[in-house]
């Protein structure tokens, strides 16, 4: 059984089906992989400027909009200089 229980209370990165990247602490989940994220921020990537972080707060994200959920290593993440990253925004999921 592939479970999200291992990610509870961890810092996670979520990629949504429209290409958005959200970072937050996973507070809860259910069988449909609906997710509650606390202290969430959206990371907006662009080719011209560095990563922009938009604070969102407490979010419930519906499972059917999620592409992937990944556990972030907090040390590695703080070592990254977000302002120096240039990248295309992720493409949306196309069925």
């Amino acid at each position: 059984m592939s479970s999200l229980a291992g990610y509870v209370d961890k810092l996670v990165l979520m990629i949504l089906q429209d290409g958005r990247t959200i970072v937050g602490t996973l507070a809860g989940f259910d069988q449909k992989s609906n997710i509650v994220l606390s202290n969430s921020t959206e990371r907006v990537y662009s080719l011209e400027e560095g990563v922009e972080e938009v604070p969102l707060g407490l979010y419930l994200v519906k499972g059917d909009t999620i592409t992937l959920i990944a556990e972030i290593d907090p040390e590695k993440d703080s070592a990254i200089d977000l302002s120096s990253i240039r990248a295309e925004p992720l493409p949306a999921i196309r069925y």
Partner: protein
Amino acid sequence: MLIFSVFKTLTDQRVTVELKNELSITGTLKSVDQFLNIRLDNISVHDEARHPHMMAVKNCFIRGSVVRYVQIPAGGVDTQLLEDATRREAATQTKR
């Protein structure tokens, strides 16, 4: 059910998952569920320069509905066994 069983036999193998948003991730298959959601450990993203989004990430959970392909090692699956199992399953399906 059949492909779910195939994935269960592939746990602990290195696989590459290509998603419908063109992202390609290689990792060790840790677990799979009835929706073919996939848990991968020790991941590396294929075109790291284009997708720096996951630099601080070591493992992930991928929703089954966004997977396009799962590339498995040659010989990872006994194709003869799979073909026989598929024929049996198809037979029981048409019976119903």
